[in-house]
């Protein structure tokens, strides 16, 4: 197996035993990017010199016998929605095409502190709004398993670069499925942590009551490793909870005794692709063989979750994105106009179609006369959705089902039908509304060779157990070892 196909955990071991240097790892992945990037288009920017410089510094540190962080010499790609000091951060939007943040996001600081090699910024749906990464203002990212198909979104670049072995780890963000859905469609592991587990300081906000930062990795161990690095309290994000961060990897191979898996009827309803269903059912059987009990459960309000989400998320987005007015940073129109017209022209020119659409929906549902009927109604439904999860998880260790209703669709297939695109988030949005952690792991392929994801949902701050449960399945399957031919 070549260097680029290895996991971060393997790369760490190779370095500590002296068989490989951080510099050699960096060169291997840079070469992979030169080779594969024209096909995959995972990155919005990748500074080769900066990568080499960081890798050399870590090799020097190792040589000097200094203590090293837990990600020493490991390339980590970062979604272009997270601020990186001195490195252009675009949100894949024209309005931020030239924005160079004056500070690092908290998670980027954490990566630096753990001696990771920051390895480029990844392409995404503009402002994280979308499910295919087609809404990027710059480029369309391809699925490494099928280049005519989307990688999922909005963190499509972060998923594609790990699946396509351009980087062993990456960070994404998940507001309604934007980590889990692309992880599923690209055949890798993706985790949306509990709301409040990871600081959002320096994350360019989409929907503040839903957004979380989380890891992409080839396997559960690497996912646990990256979560250890980024989780934890940061007083610059007042929603970030001050709870100790477990060493997730330590308990990873301890199976959960008497595991009870809630299987919601509603996740196997019409609209679910037959091959996806078969793979997920087979995974559940595998858990039964491992001694787990499957519990038939119901999340009665889950059919309303998507509608509630598409009110709450745009409402918060319309408010958050009001800051892009062309005054302090970002695009300002060249047209000569008064203040209000300058705002309106700058925003009209800078935002792409999906972002405009969400701002419009959000503005409408918050506008005078409609707020109670739409926004407040959606918040009430949100409580019902959360209560469904609380009830089921009081009785089960985990909820399982498909991450997505279908495998990756072809590029352009849903681009003109926003509502059809929204429906690809049908199994993932309720987790964000409830604030619980959600994990997607690979559980098979279609006959056509497209990856399928199994979704695991747990109680708030129960990431440790969720990862252990995922590892139980991973230990008896080999989906996570597959790499696409590129």
């Amino acid at each position, binding site marked *: 197996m070549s260097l680029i196909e290895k996991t971060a955990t393997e790369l760490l071991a190779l370095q500590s035993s002296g068989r490989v240097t951080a510099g050699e790892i960096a060169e291997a992945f840079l070469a992979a990017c030169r080779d594969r990037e024209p096909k995959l288009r995972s990155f919005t920017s990748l500074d080769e010199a900066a990568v080499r410089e960081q890798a050399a510094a870590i090799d020097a540190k190792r040589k000097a016998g200094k203590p090293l962080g837990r990600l020493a010499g490991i390339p980590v790609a970062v979604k272009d929605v997270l601020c990186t000091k001195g490195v252009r951060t675009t949100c894949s939007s024209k309005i931020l095409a030239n924005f*160079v943040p*004056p*500070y690092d996001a908290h998670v980027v600081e954490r990566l630096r502190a753990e001696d990771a090699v920051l390895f480029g910024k990844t392409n995404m749906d503009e402002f994280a709004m979308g499910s295919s990464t087609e809404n990027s203002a710059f480029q369309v990212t391809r699925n490494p398993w099928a280049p005519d198909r989307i990688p999922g979104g909005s963190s499509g670049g972060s998923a594609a670069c790990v699946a396509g072995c351009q980087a062993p780890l990456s960070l994404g963000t998940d507001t309604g499925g934007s980590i889990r859905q692309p992880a599923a469609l690209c055949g890798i592991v993706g985790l949306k942590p509990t709301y*409040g587990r990871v600081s959002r300081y320096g994350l360019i906000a989409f929907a503040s*009551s839903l957004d979380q930062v989380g890891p992409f990795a080839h396997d559960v161990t690497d996912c646990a490793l990256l979560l250890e690095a980024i989780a934890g309290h940061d*007083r610059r994000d*007042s*929603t970030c*909870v001050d709870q100790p961060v477990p060493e997730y990897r330590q308990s990873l191979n301890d199976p959960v005794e008497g595991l009870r898996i809630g299987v919601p009827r509603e996740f196997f309803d019409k609209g679910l692709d037959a091959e996806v269903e078969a793979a997920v059912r087979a995974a559940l059987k595998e858990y039964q063989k491992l001694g787990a009990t499957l519990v038939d459960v119901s999340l009665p*309000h889950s059919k*309303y979750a998507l*509608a*509630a989400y*598409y*009110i709450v998320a745009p409402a918060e987005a*319309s408010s958050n994105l*009001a800051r892009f*007015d*062309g*005054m*302090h*940073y*970002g*695009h*300002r129109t060249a047209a000569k*106009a*008064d*203040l*209000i017209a*300058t*705002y*309106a022209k700058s*925003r*009209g020119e800078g*935002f792409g*179609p999906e972002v*405009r*659409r969400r*701002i*419009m*929906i959000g*503005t*409408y549902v918050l506008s005078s006369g409609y707020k109670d009927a*739409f926004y*407040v*109604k*959606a918040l*009430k*439904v*949100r*409580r*019902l959705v*959360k209560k469904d999860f609380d009830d089921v998880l009081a009785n089960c260790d985990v909820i399982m089902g498909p991450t997505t209703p279908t495998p990756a669709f072809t590029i352009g297939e849903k681009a003109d039908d*926003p*509502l059809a695109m*929204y429906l690809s988030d049908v199994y993932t949005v309720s987790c964000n*509304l*409830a*604030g619980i952690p959600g994990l997607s792991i690979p559980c098979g392929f279609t006959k056509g060779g497209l990856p399928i994801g199994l979704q695991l949902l747990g109680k*708030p701050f129960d990431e440790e157990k969720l990862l252990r449960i995922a590892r139980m399945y991973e230990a008896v399957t080999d989906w996570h070892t597959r790499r696409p031919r590129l």
Partner: protein
Amino acid sequence: MSLSLDEVRKVARLARLELPEDDLVRMQAQLSAILDYVAQLGELDTRDVEPLAHPLPVQNVFRPDEPTPSLPVEAALRNAPKRVGDYFAVPAVFDSDEPVSP
């Protein structure tokens, strides 16, 4: 539920979003379809349900009020679309010919 073109225009104005006419027309159809979809929430009786704005039961997060350095002026201004000296240059807020009302 269908929105009129005038309603779409009004929302765009509220959102400070200048859109070309053909965009407004496309938006009219798309927004109407999306609002139709979300209107299914009306099926649920939520009279006795408290709205949930935030998934965590966290309230009143305090921290010590200690002075810390803020962003240096140069760093803050580096992304300014237009600057004059140490200031962001923006279009006039008030018409310069008219007195500013209190």
